[in-house]
């Protein structure tokens, strides 16, 4: 019963607050009146009676506060008072409010935007049911291996895909290139996503003789078929092979890549041994059965390795697949993005911290000018705790306003980020601002409000009820100086860390773009030519086709050289073959050498300007039936034949019998990526296109154009169609574009962190300026005395400057020390630069101290110009 009554009072107190307040006022007024009447009846003068009554009553404000306390709603009243008061204060001090709000909005906005990315990329569960049961099977990359696991595992369902690949699709203007993924029949079932409509693949899909079916993506369905329901049953012709469309996936489904426009069954035919046992192309993953631990699943997986090893149609090295393991699917997908995501989050967090310090500093500046107000309120009966709460409420109010603005800003910044981030950032398409992000922004805003309000609040608490005026000045001044020094040190330390990080990334980027590529970039145009399937399957037809295309291109005015390659430099396509080397024999069970292998036409060296160092290049005479020849790279020659002549040595593809002879050595070129081929590659070699190890699926065309390459780029599709009506042309780009695309990821990271560092430096400069200015204001009297006692204006100015520079220097050293420790986490992102790079560590302090010097200059001049007489009078 009682709690109902209490609830009633509480609700009444909250809902009818103003009525309760009115009643309380009336009650107190009635008391005063009755008391005054009583006193008057004793013969007192009515005015005197009233005064006496009020006197015995005590401080009304306090009584009301305590009554509210008794009713349990006091905090609401106070909050409302403080908020209204704070809001009025902020509206009055426009300059302060604008400075604080813009700082906060910028910092909260960028932190929120970056967090949005990190949250979606790293933290969110994958968009599949029970995603924690999904594991990636490391080192299970052969179809045969996968197939055995799929049909035999008792603890998990194994599924696989072949990544994404481009196909020729018949379009109105000849073939177009579209990308899709070949997947196992159970792919969708294991991931746990059913088609939006239609059906999934039949269990035998991909087996010999099974009907060819396809499932299309939502985007492709909308774009190609106008989202028509009757798409089911229609034919999709890919590389001249018809597939029946049996399903459409939901829009959110984007695995293995958002670029997959369709999924078709992966061919699983044990009789095609080369495909089944010989091509490392499979990404295998598993969904563990309920209650199965990853450890159990891994030991089952390992247990199968020797049995699969025995099934190979040829003998495999003993070390084959000994490293198989299961890795949580999400970790696998985001692996490469982890470090750079945390780096960006760290950068944003540092900017936020600097912003918090700046606003705290602004608030302290405010508090100094509000001293009279606080003293007055204290002497009217407010407790110092109450003042502290008020200051804290004001800061949170400010932070909330900053948070709202910041969230709006984050929407825009997120668009910028998505534009800037490397396109290979996993799950980029999923990124958007939602409830989680809003909650994060609110938490950041509140947290920073409490943080930057804490110091001013503590100072308000320590304020004593003293006579307004000069009484408390000296002690406050001492404390103020110490706080200011700490603030400046924090700011410069944070800014230093960011500047060092940005410096390392920029230096690394700089050395990456200045690394010798080994080939000519300017006035080279490249394109990818994809012949139809029957042509691509036959090396002779491909060569004949290239002959026709080459003739047309060479006839275009201004074209100096034309060449074809099996893949373009920097195309990030893996093109490795295993070779035996005649004079480097290996034990029978040991692995042979993996060579990066590019098939090229004779003009390749001249078109790309690659230097021939020794021997000869390929010639038209190197034909299918002539003696097999290879060119090798410079480092390969130095690695296998140091100090010896590599010409005439012989290598052999492991599945062939004939030896191929080294006829020349060419300069090293950046093939796979700007940092060279993958680490597991033993060497690089070239074969003539006529002697290619396998017929290339696509030909990378390379043309050096003397005049106006961009006009040539536009004309190229037409030229090629003139020579081959059934060829698709894609990726037409100048070599400059290709190169700049290859450094897109480090560039965007360097610029992003650089941007944050610039922001941090600007904020720190503003902070230093603010602190030093306040310091001069506070020390006006002291400086005045010094000047009056004969100090020169210059020395007064230097007094200000020196203390500022000391603080900055100290903060910078702290920042450098922290950066020294933190830099080691960035090692994986750096290229050609040590993580303790001298330049990156010595420039930031120099820059920061210069900036601090400039920021302290105006207050220093002001200090020098202080009029001693005036300052002593007013101070």
């Amino acid at each position, binding site marked *: 019963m009682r709690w109902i009554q209490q609830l009633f009072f509480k609700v009444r107190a909250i809902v009818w607050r103003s009525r309760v307040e009115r*009643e309380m006022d009336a*009650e*107190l007024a*009635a*008391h005063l009146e*009755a008391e005054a009447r*009583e006193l008057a009846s004793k013969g007192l003068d009515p005015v005197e009676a009233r005064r006496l009554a009020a006197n015995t009553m005590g401080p009304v404000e*306090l*009584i009301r506060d*305590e009554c509210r306390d008794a009713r349990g709603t006091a905090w609401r009243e106070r909050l409302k008072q403080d908020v209204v008061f704070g809001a009025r204060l902020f509206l009055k001090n426009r300059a302060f409010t604008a400075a604080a709000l813009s700082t906060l909005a910028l910092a909260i906005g960028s932190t929120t935007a970056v967090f949005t990315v990190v949250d979606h990329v790293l933290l969110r569960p994958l968009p599949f049911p029970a995603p924690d049961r999904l594991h990636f099977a490391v080192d299970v990359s052969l179809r045969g291996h996968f197939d055995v696991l799929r049909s035999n595992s008792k603890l998990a369902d194994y599924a696989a895909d072949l990544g994404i690949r481009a196909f020729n699709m018949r379009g109105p203007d000849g073939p177009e290139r579209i990308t899709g993924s070949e997947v196992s029949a159970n792919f969708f079932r294991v991931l746990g996503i059913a088609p939006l409509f239609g059906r999934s693949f039949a269990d035998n899909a991909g087996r010999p003789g099974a009907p060819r079916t396809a499932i299309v993506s939502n985007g492709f369905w909308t774009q190609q078929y106008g989202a028509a329901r009757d798409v089911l049953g229609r034919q999709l012709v890919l590389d001249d092979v018809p597939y029946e469309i049996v399903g459409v996936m939901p829009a959110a489904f984007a695995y293995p890549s958002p670029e997959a426009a369709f999924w078709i069954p992966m061919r699983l035919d044990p009789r095609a041994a080369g495909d089944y046992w010989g091509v490392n192309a499979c990404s295998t993953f598993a969904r563990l059965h309920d209650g199965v631990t990853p450890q159990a699943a891994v030991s089952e997986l390992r247990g199968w390795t020797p049995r699969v090893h025995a099934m190979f149609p040829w003998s495999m090295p003993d070390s084959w697949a000994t490293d198989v393991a299961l890795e949580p699917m999400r970790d696998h997908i985001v692996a490469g993005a982890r470090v750079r995501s945390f780096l960006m989050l760290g950068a944003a967090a540092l900017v936020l911290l600097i912003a918090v310090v700046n606003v705290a500093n602004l608030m302290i500046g405010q508090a100094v000018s509000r001293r009279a107000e606080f003293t007055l309120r204290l002497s009217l009966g407010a407790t110092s705790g109450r003042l502290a709460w008020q200051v804290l409420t004001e800061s949170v109010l400010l932070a909330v306003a900053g948070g709202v603005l910041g969230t709006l800003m984050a929407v825009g910044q997120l668009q910028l980020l998505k534009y800037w981030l490397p396109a290979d950032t996993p799950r980029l398409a999923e990124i958007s601002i939602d409830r989680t992000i809003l909650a994060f922004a609110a938490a950041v805003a509140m947290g920073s409000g409490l943080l930057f309000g804490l110091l001013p609040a503590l100072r308000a608490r320590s304020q004593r009820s003293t006579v307004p005026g000069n009484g408390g000045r000296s002690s406050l001044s001492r404390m103020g100086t110490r706080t200011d020094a700490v603030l400046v040190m924090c700011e410069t330390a944070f800014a230093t860390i960011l500047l060092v990080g940005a410096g390392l990334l920029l230096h690394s980027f700089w050395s990456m773009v200045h690394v010798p590529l080994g080939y000519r970039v300017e006035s080279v145009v490249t394109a990818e030519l994809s012949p139809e399937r029957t042509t691509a399957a036959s090396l002779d037809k491909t060569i004949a086709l290239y002959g026709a295309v080459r003739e047309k291109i060479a006839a275009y005015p201004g074209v100096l050289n034309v060449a074809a390659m099996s893949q373009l430099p920097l195309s990030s396509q893996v093109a490795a073959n295993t070779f035996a080397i005649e004079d480097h024999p290996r034990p029978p069970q040991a692995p042979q050498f993996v060579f990066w292998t590019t098939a090229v036409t004779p003009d390749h060296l001249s078109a790309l300007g690659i230097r021939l160092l020794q021997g000869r290049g390929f010639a038209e005479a190197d034909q299918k039936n002539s003696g097999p020849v290879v060119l090798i790279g410079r480092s390969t020659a130095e690695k296998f034949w140091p100090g010896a002549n590599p010409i005439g040595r012989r290598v052999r593809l492991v599945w062939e019998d004939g030896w191929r002879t080294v006829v020349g050595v060419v300069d090293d070129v950046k093939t796979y990526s700007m940092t060279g081929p993958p680490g597991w590659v033993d060497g690089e070699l070239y074969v003539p296109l006529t002697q290619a190890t396998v017929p290339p699926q696509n030909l990378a065309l390379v043309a050096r154009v003397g005049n106006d390459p961009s006009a040539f780029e536009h004309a190229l599709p037409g030229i090629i169609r003139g020579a081959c009506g059934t060829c698709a042309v894609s990726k037409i780009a100048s070599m400059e574009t290709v190169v700049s695309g290859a450094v897109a990821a480090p560039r965007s990271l360097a610029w992003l962190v650089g941007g944050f560092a610039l922001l941090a430096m600007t904020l720190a400069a503003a902070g230093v300026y603010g602190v030093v200015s306040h310091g001069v204001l506070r020390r006006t009297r002291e400086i005045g005395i010094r000047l009056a006692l004969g100090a020169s204006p210059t020395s007064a100015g230097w007094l200000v400057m020196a203390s500022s520079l000391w603080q900055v220097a100290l903060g910078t050293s702290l920042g450098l020390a922290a950066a020294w420790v933190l830099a080691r986490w960035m090692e994986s992102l750096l290229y050609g630069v040590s993580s303790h790079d001298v330049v990156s560590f010595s420039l930031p302090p120099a820059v920061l101290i210069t900036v601090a010097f400039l920021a302290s200059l105006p207050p220093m001049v002001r200090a020098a110009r202080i009029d001693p007489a005036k300052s002593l009078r007013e101070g």
Partner: protein
Amino acid sequence: MSKPQALVQGTLSLLILKILNLEPQTGWAISRRLRQMSNETLQASHGSLYPALHRLEHEGWIRGKWQELEGGRPTKVYSLTPAGRRQLALERAQWEKLSLAINGILESA
């Protein structure tokens, strides 16, 4: 300065309950009776009574009602509730036990 001097914490509510046990009173009347009954010993600032009244009302031991007194403005008159009567008995018993104990100590020492 807000607490009535020499009033043990919690005693104020006992006294208020005791005064209201006789008849319903306004806040001012309660404060006057406090002074009279204690022979002006409890020279509390009058205002400090009100938070206590509000708290007792919140606890449900007393109830305030707005009444028009002769010719004057409406005034809030407090009366004891049944729960308040029980509370009075309880607090009174506790007080007697406490003062007995203290007296015992003072006399034996």
